[in-house]
């Protein structure tokens, strides 16, 4: 199966790979997927006092489409408010990367990762 150009670009030059210290108060961490299913995504967001996502990082265990989906997501959410980021849908990611049906679950996972990171951040703040 040949990959879409954008997938290859994100796979070969992944944006924002890495980790933030997850104990920091302004960091939200989302860890989704399962090793037994062949993909795990860790997405972290850094949020400023205005509720803007000022930075994002990811690490992903998975196929090229999973890595590309998470890389794309870090680009998309940077500079967005939590609400804006939370409204990103898997179909936006899948369409942008032109994922074939068998790979759409990668984009679903990426959407889950955004929500999980936001939720983690909000829970921290509420404490």
């Amino acid at each position, binding site marked *: 199966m040949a990959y879409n150009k954008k997938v290859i670009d994100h796979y070969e030059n992944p944006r924002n790979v890495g980790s933030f210290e997850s104990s920091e108060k302004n960091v939200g961490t989302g860890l989704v997927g399962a090793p037994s299913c062949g993909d*795990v995504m860790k997405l972290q967001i850094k949020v400023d006092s205005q509720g803007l996502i000022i930075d994002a990082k990811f690490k992903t*265990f998975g196929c090229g489409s999973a890595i590309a989906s998470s890389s794309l997501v870090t680009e998309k959410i940077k500079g967005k408010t939590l609400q804006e980021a939370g409204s990103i849908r898997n179909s936006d990611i899948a369409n942008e990367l032109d994922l074939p049906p068998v790979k759409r679950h990668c984009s679903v996972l990426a959407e889950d990762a955004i929500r999980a990171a936001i939720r983690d951040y909000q829970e921290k703040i509420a404490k």
Partner: protein
Amino acid sequence: MAKNLIYLDYQATTPCDPRVLEKMIPYLCEKYGNPHSRNHAFGWDAESAVESARQQVAKIINAESKEIIFTSGATESNNLALKGAAEFYGDKKKHIITCVTEHKCVLDTCRHLEQKGFSVTYLPVHKNGLIDLETLKEAFTEETLLVSIMAVNNEIGVIQPLREIGALCRERNVFFHTDAAQAVGKIPLDVNEMNIDLLSISAHKMYGPMGIGALYVRRNPRVRLKAQINGGGQERGMRSGTLSPALCVGLGEACVLSQEKMSQESARIRYYAHLFCKKIMEALPEVYLNGDKDSRVPGNLNLSFAHVEGEGLMMAIKNLCVSSGSACTSASLEPSYVLRALGVSEELAHTSLRIGIGRFTKKEEIELAADQIITAVNKLRDMSPLWEMAQAGIDVSSIDWASH
């Protein structure tokens, strides 16, 4: 095709040896007769080519040429062996024993026979991929017609104890069929010493052309099969249809070449596999060889690279043509059933690559491939949350993952 490709997928298929092709060509253009035409020279020429190919095929497994039936490949041979025997003897004996790591064409044929009223025992395998002979002994019943156990596994390369299985079957008057697609030409096979009654062969796994294979059918004690393809009664009535002399000659020549050079070739491939493994294991921690380390063909290395997903890895080494147990591309998204049967965790099954080394593999290619895999695994581990957790001492299996 892209340049700089390194082919390391010899279990999927092998290139046709140029010496094989050379022998085939005359039977496509000049000597184009139908081998079943009995009344002119074109037919006689073609027939004699087919018959000498049949002898060459017989020789590599120490059989008689009359015991070789040409087919379209190992899938057809396996279908003919299992369905043919089941339909011929099915009113007396209705039980078949096979193994969970068999090729899909054996497993699917067994499922088909189950629907037709046969009972099938699927033997489990040990962690090393080999069946347990005691479990096999216990599986025999008065009703057992046939045991079908592959010689060499296509995914992990392990060699099943054929001689022992053959002896157990013969003592009980049960037929022994083996799918030897990955074994012929790679390990010595002797149908008499091993008490094999039916044996499937594929040409394109042994440097012959695609589209032809053979089934060995023992004549003494005789095994009878119900034909699955009806017609002019060719191949002792067991497989009708005009034979392709070119393809038959190709399979025959592939057998001759493999038999001649088997021990040398095997030693060279073993050396390359050793080089490859050494390089990988020295550079990378947490790499595991799947399948028994001794009872295996040297040209098959199935390795799990912990915390790196196989398909993602393949994308990073895109000029290396290998195969992954991850099967993330398949519609099912299930990891390899063979690795799962070995008790390899689903997680590790997703991280496996099958590296196939063969006749035309060069030493430089092996070294280059190892280097590229090492670079890719390091890059992907740096990107892997599982690797990060493992390095931090977090037990990945202790996390309550949500499956999706």
